[in-house]
């Protein structure tokens, strides 16, 4: 069976429509969404209404969380002071525009979705704010998949799609048995082997950061485990125009057109905010 996994729509209704049309052509039977329905883009209500009306199961993203709980992401979620300032402008704008029932719906979104051996999260199983970058240490990435109790972990949040196969993992632990006494003795070794696990990042529908303005998402075939990246062109200029007309900072339009929209990224991607 083919699944379509979409993420990080960010109020870009134009891009969402184009992606939904593309999913039809791919004959995907189910769609999963990894959150960040709102924020930055000009049509937060429309995007949420669309996801709701199509009954697409969705996780809660960090932007959705902020609209529900108030802006409580710590400054560490942002790559820079400038991005933080602009993020705040985007949050405040979205917070003003959002309809009460949309806010209520966002509050009901779960942090994690499961289907058989697949797990869907926004950032990582640890946090909506954690970035699972493709460059992350392989064992650390493996730990995230295992902590989700899954074989395939779908995530978004970085706005750049990728698939990562983690194969032939083996690690051993030697435990010193000395609970007391003068020195650790009698080290016993235990071996662990982990079968193939995958991390699949679904990219971003509404706010790509791969250097082109096109929307990205992935198709996953549950029978063959085949992953297909989809890059969908759409009329991004219309979104850019709406960004400016609706009073969002024009720099968002410029960055969207360049495919370099801010994905907020901490210096230390594994940093988990405790706020």
């Amino acid at each position, binding site marked *: 069976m083919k699944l379509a996994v979409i993420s990080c729509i960010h109020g870009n209704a134009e891009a969402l429509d184009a992606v939904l049309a593309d999913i039809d052509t791919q004959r995907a039977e189910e769609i999963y969404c990894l959150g960040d329905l709102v924020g930055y883009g000009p049509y937060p209500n429309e995007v949420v209404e669309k996801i709701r009306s199509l009954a697409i199961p969705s996780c809660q993203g960090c932007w959705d969380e902020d609209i529900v709980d108030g802006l409580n992401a710590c400054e560490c979620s942002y790559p*820079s*002071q*400038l*991005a933080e*300032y602009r993020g705040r402008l985007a949050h405040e704008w979205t917070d003003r525009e959002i309809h009460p029932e949309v806010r209520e719906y966002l509050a009901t979104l779960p942090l994690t979705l499961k289907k058989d051996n697949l797990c869907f999260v926004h950032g990582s199983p640890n946090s909506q704010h954690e970035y699972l970058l493709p460059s992350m240490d392989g064992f650390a990435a493996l730990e995230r998949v295992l902590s989700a109790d899954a074989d395939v972990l779908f995530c978004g949040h970085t706005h750049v799609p990728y698939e990562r196969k983690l194969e032939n993992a083996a690690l051993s632990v030697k435990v010193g048995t000395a609970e007391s006494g003068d020195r650790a003795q009698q080290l016993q070794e235990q071996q662990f082997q982990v079968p193939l696990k995958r991390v699949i990042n679904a990219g971003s529908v509404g706010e790509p950061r791969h250097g082109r303005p096109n929307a990205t998402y992935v198709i996953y075939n549950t029978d063959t485990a085949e992953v297909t990246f989809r890059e969908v062109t759409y009329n991004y200029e219309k979104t850019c125009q709406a960004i400016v007309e609706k009073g969002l900072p*024009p*720099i968002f339009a410029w960055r969207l057109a360049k495919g370099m929209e*801010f994905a907020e990224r*901490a210096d*230390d991607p594994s940093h988990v905010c405790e706020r």
Partner: protein
Amino acid sequence: MNITLVAGPPGIGKTTWINQFLSTSKQPLFYLCPAAGTEAVDRLRVGYHFPEVTVVEDTQAAALLMNLPDQAQIYIELGFHLDLAALPFNQLPCRKVAIVPPELAQLTEQSEWHDWADELVAGNKIQVPHPNCFPETRRMPLTGQVFDPPSLDELLTEITGGAYGQVIRLKGIFEMPDGQAFDIDFVEGLPGIEYTELKLPRSLKGRPTRPSSLEVVGYDFQQKTMAEALGVSCLSDELIAQYQRQYRQQYKTTDLTNNAEENVA
């Protein structure tokens, strides 16, 4: 006394060409950048990179030129906005060097520089602005400002990418929270943005007092939006103090303090 006048389009490499002599000469060295203002980035850069060179203010130039020692070497960098035919320096006994793109470095070519220069030097391979489409220069004084490094990175990518108007040249001196300053340089058509760390003492006691500024050359600037984004990328007094405390400590110990943790995050 030995005077060299250097002219050429923006981004061609005038300062770079002059620098090679500033770093090797054993004679007393003087550098002028007429009608550029005291906070001109070129002037600041020469001062910072070559402390042994005397950077001459416009107001002192006349008096100085009269009283120079015989062995003095004087380099005068002429901004592209100056009319070469009407320069007062033209009367002086001097060597006139024009730096032009490699394809124009033939004396048979035609241009303002060819009419004026004694000597043509091949510089960067760049597009020379059309005489009818003269670029504007915007200078933003930054003295006392300390930048959030990742914000500055983002912003420079935006500025040079054309988010605030078309930029053909960007140069600036920027202060960093670790007390160091960078010389940053971009030329349209050449790859990347060049960062050079200045060999200056770390400024870790309050806002730095040494001058810094940014210059952009290009067309159709939205200066207000650009200045606003620059402002947002600068650190507050409080943050500067926090960073400076942290960096002062870091040079003493490698401990990870509560404070450092917050700042790093």
